[in-house]
């Protein structure tokens, strides 16, 4: 295939999901809408695999000139997302078989997918923003799909934050694009440090992407939305969609040229996120919520990595390593979420084996040696200076704790009936995702880090990956068995409650703004508008003597002014 033809995969990766979404609403396909889901991301995957890097596709008539491009990082994200969406698509087919509103779910699924892949393909800021907004908004029906009170509440929090995030992004993009004088992402990124208000621009972008990526304190929606959504949607959300925020940071924050302060701020923000995600996650008892906090925590790590890239002279391949980390996390977290559904369908007979896979994947996230996660952790180490490095490494302990907490709470959700087995439609997509999470990083490690595959097998690396997991395990045992600690009860979404009150107050304040009306147009109602005095004048003038006298005086006056009395 020629490169030109291959380049067509780029628009197809977006268009096919869109078409699939549309088809799922149309008459004959409505009953089979869910069957379209696994097919829709296929062009995206093909694009990630086949399209040569730095290929671009331009459609100047669309939007304000659409440009699609694929670079290394983008391909990594695209591949991960496509894979996850395919798996989740298969999973959803089974999971939602008996659900209401299948066509609608399918449509928004595809729309979200299109946006999600579009984010990784966008070469210009308008397309990027359009795709990003598409993910943000189309995900809402997925989150609220169940229509339960929790789902709707989660949806509300989500949408408020999404809109705020979109707005921040819009502002940031406008400022960035204006200073760059271009709409192309690389040029914008390059021009950002020299923009008139770089700090404000970066802050806006950080806020916008941070909301999507669950950066504390903008993470509020995540722990609410993930459990509320149907499981395949949670997987996509946590695995792929939050990565859109990460990808945005990678794409727009100026590598190696950012204002010095920002590097530190972002690293700090990432680390705070990483730790607080763990801290709050440990207090949760709903498996999906725990996973959500785990996602928050992991995103913190990635953001911290990205933060280092802003500083002067960052380690080479920092962003690639961040992408690599994200790739693993996406697949692994996807597998974990899908697993929640699998466990729920597994009776005592099979749950043990399912738990083993889950543990493997979960501890992989914490960096268990030989898993894909270990490779990911290894890849990012080179980016950090001493103190952050220790903190990041230490965070793996927390991650371990959190994964263990997850495993404990998820185990409790296993099906009660002894013969329960997950059906194939759930099982295989899950297993496949788990396998990808464990294996794919091995395939891409060399490409992403430039290190040989033997590098992670070096003993010191194995050890540095293993000790946090061990430490976490021990800590967990000590806390649970020895100290019998019960986690405090922190509400899901932690800060949502106080912040919700704050926003309610704001809304009430807005509602009290008084109307502004000019006193126009009501006058004719009041007959008294013309003073009765005027009527008196009229009746006086109607009397001839008065009028006649005035006439006489006018005669005299007129004569006088005309010079008659000169």
């Amino acid at each position, binding site marked *: 295939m020629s490169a030109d033809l291959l380049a067509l995969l780029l628009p197809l990766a977006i268009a096919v999901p869109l078409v699939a979404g549309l088809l799922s609403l149309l008459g004959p396909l409505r009953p089979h809408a869910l069957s379209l889901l696994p097919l829709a991301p296929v062009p995206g995957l093909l694009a990630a695999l086949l399209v040569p890097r730095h290929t671009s596709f331009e459609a100047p008539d669309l939007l304000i000139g659409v440009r699609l491009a694929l670079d290394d990082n983008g391909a990594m994200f695209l591949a991960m997302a496509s894979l996850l969406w395919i798996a989740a698509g298969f999973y959803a087919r089974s999971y939602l078989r008996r659900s209401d509103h299948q066509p609608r779910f399918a449509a928004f699924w595809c729309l979200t997918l299109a946006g999600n892949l579009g984010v990784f393909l966008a070469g210009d800021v308008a397309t990027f923003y359009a795709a990003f907004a598409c993910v943000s908004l189309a995900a809402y029906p997925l989150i609220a799909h169940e229509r339960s009170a929790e789902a709707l509440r989660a949806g509300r929090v989500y949408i408020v934050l999404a809109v705020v995030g979109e707005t921040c992004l819009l502002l940031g993009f406008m400022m960035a694009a204006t200073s760059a004088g271009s709409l192309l992402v690389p040029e914008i990124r390059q021009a950002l440090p020299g923009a008139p208000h770089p700090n404000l621009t970066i802050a806006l972008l950080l806020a916008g992407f941070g909301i999507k990526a669950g950066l504390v304190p903008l993470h509020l929606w995540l722990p609410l939305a993930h459990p509320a959504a149907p499981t395949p949607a949670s997987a996509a959300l946590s695995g792929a969609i939050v990565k859109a925020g990460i990808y945005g940071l990678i794409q727009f924050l100026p590598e190696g040229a950012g204002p010095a302060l920002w590097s530190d701020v972002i690293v700090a923000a990432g680390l705070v996120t990483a730790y607080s995600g763990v801290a709050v996650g440990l207090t949760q008892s709903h498996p999906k919520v725990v996973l959500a906090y785990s996602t928050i925590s992991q995103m913190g790590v990635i953001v911290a990595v990205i933060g280092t890239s802003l500083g002067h002279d960052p380690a080479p391949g920092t962003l690639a390593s961040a992408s690599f980390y994200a790739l693993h996390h996406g697949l692994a977290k996807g597998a974990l979420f899908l697993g929640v559904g699998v466990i729920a369908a597994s009776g005592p007979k099979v749950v043990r084996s399912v738990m083993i896979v889950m543990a493997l994947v979960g501890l992989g996230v914490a960096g268990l040696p030989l898993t894909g996660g270990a490779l990911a952790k290894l890849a990012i180490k080179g980016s950090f200076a001493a103190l952050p490095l220790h903190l990041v490494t230490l965070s793996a302990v927390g991650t371990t704790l959190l994964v263990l907490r997850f495993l404990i709470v998820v185990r409790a959700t296993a099906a009660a009936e002894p013969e329960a087995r997950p059906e194939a439609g759930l099982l295989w997509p899950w297993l496949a995702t788990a396998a990808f999470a464990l294996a794919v990083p091995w395939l891409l490690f060399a490409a992403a880090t430039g290190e040989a595959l033997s590098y992670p097998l070096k003993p010191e690396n194995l050890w540095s990956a293993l000790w946090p997991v061990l430490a976490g395990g021990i800590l967990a045992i000590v806390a649970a068995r020895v100290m019998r600690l019960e986690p405090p009860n922190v509400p899901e979404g932690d800060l949502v409650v106080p912040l919700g009150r704050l926003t309610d107050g704001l809304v009430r304040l807005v509602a009290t703004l008084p109307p502004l009306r000019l006193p126009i147009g009501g*006058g*004719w109602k009041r*007959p008294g*508008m*013309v003073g009765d005095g*005027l*009527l008196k*004048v*009229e009746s006086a*003038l*109607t*009397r*001839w003597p008065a*009028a*006649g006298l*005035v*006439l006489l005086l*006018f*005669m005299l*006056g*007129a*004569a006088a*002014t*005309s*010079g*008659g009395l*000169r």
Partner: protein
Amino acid sequence: MTASGLAALPLLELTVVLPLAGLLLALPLGHHGARATLALAPIILLVTALLCIEIMWSGAPIERVAGGWDVPLGIALRADGISGAFLLTTALVACAVAVFQAQGGQDGGATRRSTFWPLFLATWGALNAVFVSGDLFNLYVALELLTLAAVAMVAYGSTEAAMRYLLFALSGSLVFLLGVALIYAGSGTFDIGLLGSAGAGDTAMTVAAAFMTAGLLAKAALFPFHAWLPPAHGNAPTPASALLSALVVKAPFFILVRIWFDIGPETSGVLMQLLGYLGVAAILYGSLLAMRQERLKLVIAYSTVAQLGYLFLVFPLAGAAQDLPWTAGTWSGAIFHALSHALAKAALFLAAGIVIEAVGHDRLQGLAGLARDLPMTVFAFGIAAVSIMGLPPSGAFIGKYLMLTGALAGGHVFLAIVMIGGGLLAAAYLFRPLRLMLLAGETQPAKAIARRRQVVPLLLALAAVGLGIAASLPYALLQIGRSLTATEGIE
């Protein structure tokens, strides 16, 4: 027909002769006078139109002397552009009124049927006589003819209103005549042309002009001499109201224009300012009182009080210094306003007449649902109202625009604001009846009125609008024989 062919006909004389002959015919015919009038009216209209064409064609005023005696011994009949414009407008309105009355004039009593047509034709003849007269005393006689006919027509409706009208009119005539006498005493001629070219600036002339002005104001119902107008126009029978409000009050204004622009007595300008400010007062006062009225015809009558005020703004704007570049435009604007008002006001009164015929009264509060029963009439009322408000594309807008231009160019910002504000006030008092007519519900059985009758006010209203759309022709006509020294327009 060629220009010379037109000139061979005594068109100028016929414009006066024909209505007068008609009245002499209609007087013995009694209530059969309708037929005679209907037969004659189109002929007069045609003659008037031909006269205008002749004026346009020759590009100069047409002048005849009665009996072949040259002025100052004889009496000149002179038709310049402004005469032509007023004659034609009068013919249009009169024809419409005649058709309107002849179609359904069975409402009046025996008296009205029998003397209406002579009085109607006398009004028409007197108006035409005013518009073509070149002689001050002849103007007096024509004015008195007008007064007689007009007062009598008002008396059909209300003796009291007629009496009050007569008092104002008599005083006006006398004061005017006093001025005429002074002029003759001072200059030994009644001829306007001679007086104008003599450049008379002596005291007798200026005082005479002041007196004549005062007398004409009383007849033209300029505030504060307007009090007779609303009862008279508001109570007269419909066709009379239309004629009176549209045309009769314009006759004295026309003579004022003749006096101040054709004779052009020396003036300090203060009198011109005074006239202007009375105009301002009229606009505001008339409008405010129009808002207070509870009867449709009174609203329209007070509207006339207000609208007449606009005409008098021509004096401060163009009268004080007649050689400024924009005065020609301003002057033409005022005439446009007068013509447009004539057409629109006649339309309003005829529409009001239809309303009265249909529901038996004209109390505003009882007009709900009329828009459904008499859509064409309400539409006509609306279009005429647009004209009165001076909104585009009516002739009044052209008039207002030209006057505004002059006002701003001459630094009369206050007058400009009043002109514009007056339009808003007009909207306020005219939309009030309109909206009440549009009010749904309260269905009252309205008497059906034939469409061919309803179409009359509509055509008049459309003519008022058409005056604005096809403004270039009447404007060109007005410029013929214009005595202002100013150049054309304000390019």
